[in-house]
């Protein structure tokens, strides 16, 4: 092999190694950071082990929101069939309201309470997160023809 060819080969090999390393990084990062979504019924049927991070969604149960003197707030997320108690410390998004759709990110404590790290807000109040819609449909609580208006 001529030196020129050799150099080319080394070059191609380096590219290949870089490509494989990149792909490996993507796969590993993806595996570690995929979040699953559960509805309250899912959780009751298959309890997730405490400490594992996931997302939960449904409607904020009417009358379940309790604020303490500080920043702690507890409420229940329901899909009509089951409900899960949620605890959150911090400022809630403006669109958080009883009876509205909500998605929370966090993990379950040994006592069964879901401790939310993040409570997701949507930009538009008439908008319902699709996962929540799916969950409500599965529990038979979704009414077709509900508002679906778009913002930007």
């Amino acid at each position: 092999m001529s030196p020129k060819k050799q150099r080319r080969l080394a070059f191609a090999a380096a590219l290949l190694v870089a490509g494989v390393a990149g792909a490996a990084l993507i796969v590993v990062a993806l595996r570690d950071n995929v979040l699953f979504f559960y509805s309250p019924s899912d959780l009751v049927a298959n309890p997730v082990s405490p400490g594992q991070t996931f997302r939960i969604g449904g409607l904020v149960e009417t009358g379940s929101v309790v604020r303490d003197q500080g920043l702690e707030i507890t409420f229940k997320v329901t899909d009509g069939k089951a409900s899960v108690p949620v605890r959150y410390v911090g400022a809630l998004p403006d669109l958080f309201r009883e009876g509205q759709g909500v998605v929370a990110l966090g993990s379950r404590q040994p006592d069964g309470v879901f401790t939310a790290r993040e409570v997701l807000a949507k930009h538009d109040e008439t908008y319902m997160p699709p996962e929540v819609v799916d969950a409500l449909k599965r529990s038979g609580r979704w009414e077709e023809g509900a508002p679906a208006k778009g913002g930007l």
Partner: protein
Amino acid sequence: MTGELGQLALCLALALSLAQSFGGLWGPLKNDYRLMAMSRGAALGVFVFSALAFGALTFAYVTSDFSVLAVAQNSHTAKPLIYKISGVWGNHEGSMLLWLLILSLYSAAIATFKAGGERLSAQALGVQGLIAISFLLFVLLTSNPFERLFPQPFEGEGLNPLLQDPGLAFHPPLLYLGYVGMSATFAYAVAALLEARNDAAWVRAARPYALTAWTALTLGIAAGSWWAYYTLGWGGFWFWDPVENASLMPWIVATALLHSMMATERSGAFKSWTLLLSIAAFSFSLIGTFLVRSGVITSVHAFASDPARGVFILLILFVSVAVPLTLFAWRAPKLSPGAAFETLSRETGILINNLVLTVAAVAVLIGTLFPLLNRTISVGAPYYNTVVLSFAAILAIVVPFGPILAWRRGNLGAALYTLRFAAAAAAVAVVATIAIASPGSARGLLAVGLGVWLIAGSISDLARRAGSLRRIGLLPLGAFSVALAHGGLGVTAIGVAGTTVWKSELIRILKPGESAALGGYMLRLDGTEQVQGPNYVADRVSISLLKDGKVVTVVYPEKRSFPTEKMVTTDASIRSNGLEDMYITLGDKREDGGWAVTAYVNPMAPFIWLGAVIAALGGMLGLAVKIRRALGARAGAPAGAKGAVT
């Protein structure tokens, strides 16, 4: 009446688009220069009629003509004028019309400047015409902005209050100017394939469009992130939301494209790759449009989901990828190979740039599309932070070498020697950060070090070109283009690191008269008053910032309630000294007059957007040099600004 006029204008634009693509594609085939001229005329006509349609819709918004469905759904008589106008593109139908208007603007530019000669530019216009036909059909069939509403309501439903913001008024037009601009480079690439000529000619013609698009996209993304920062009240500036990713992916590919175009034009390397990348860049724009407009993926942005629209855009996407690739395969035997280069050369730098950026774009795409497999899965921000930031770090290490290494055969030793001060500056910055602030995290320190490395590397390169640091001022303006783009990246890196790693945070319930400490300040809640805005009522809370017992400034964050839209928003207060932001926002109101107050001190936050503006300035300078050269060439004068962007 204006509704019908707008509709008519769109139909005429469609007819003219047919003429534009026919003349542009058939003319060169038959060597008929009259057909090519017709294509150019038609392109100007499409622009005029698109502008008329857009004007008609704007008129309907400004006059609150609620017989037009889109106006009734998105506007309100009590809305300030600027938001009536920005409301035109604050919804699906209007934003697609804006898409179309900008597409026709690029066509009009191609028709006017005829870059690359009559044949090549005519073929590019032909392709642009086909894209215009697809999108005109899309607008007319699935998202007609002029659809009537009967009976006409007395009042509109209003625009989402979060969108009633000056930052957002300009964000979509800039963004579209960016990713629709990729259609022009795409059109030139397809034209080159039609001509079976992959030399530098088409690249020279298309590069100004790529530069324009990249600059606008940079500014558009920055405007969107700035808007998110000050209106969403989370103190964050980027959320890896699918809609944000939709604009980031075309930006990443456009950045790769700009570099590979430079190599193809200057040294003849990567000829075929540049063609493919142009096709990819526009495909990513279409993917972005698809993600944003079809509503297939959950996003914090609210979108109407309409499967018909999604399918239509997917169809356009499929054709725009499949046809050029088939054409490429067919033309491949006739295409000339790229020029060879040594392992140590600027081309290698650009190769690494392209490799890393392409993989990064794919990584973002995978993360964004992953939830399509199963809706109960989502990809968290840590995925993007790990992957994209790793790639960004690798790239940042290499970037300063690029402009220093010569084309074809570079000298690494000399480059290292040039960059010795930059390396020292980066090391000093890391040590200084540990000493002044706190170690923070390894990631943060790496970002600060690399940020300074990029900025100092750019300065070192300028000094090398000028002969010494003092003579940098004597360099021609064009020489600053690359330095600004790379340096801007460094400035942004420092801002991102400061804001994410070194921010301090306070969440506390404050009753009137109570105070809390944060970042060397005392925050004292003084009281709340009710204020009336143009279309909202607000609780305005006054909070004094004290330093050493003295009031430095008073801020007034607001909780606004919009009766029309039945929505509550929070208007955060941001006090910036240029190096650090004090960010104060409100949570819930308590019965005893107290408020849940959230405050952040975000060190270096303004640098995030400052860096983007600096980089965009670099893009504008590069464009100015190109335009000046083109004008000089047209006037027969020797090309000006020699050695500007070497």
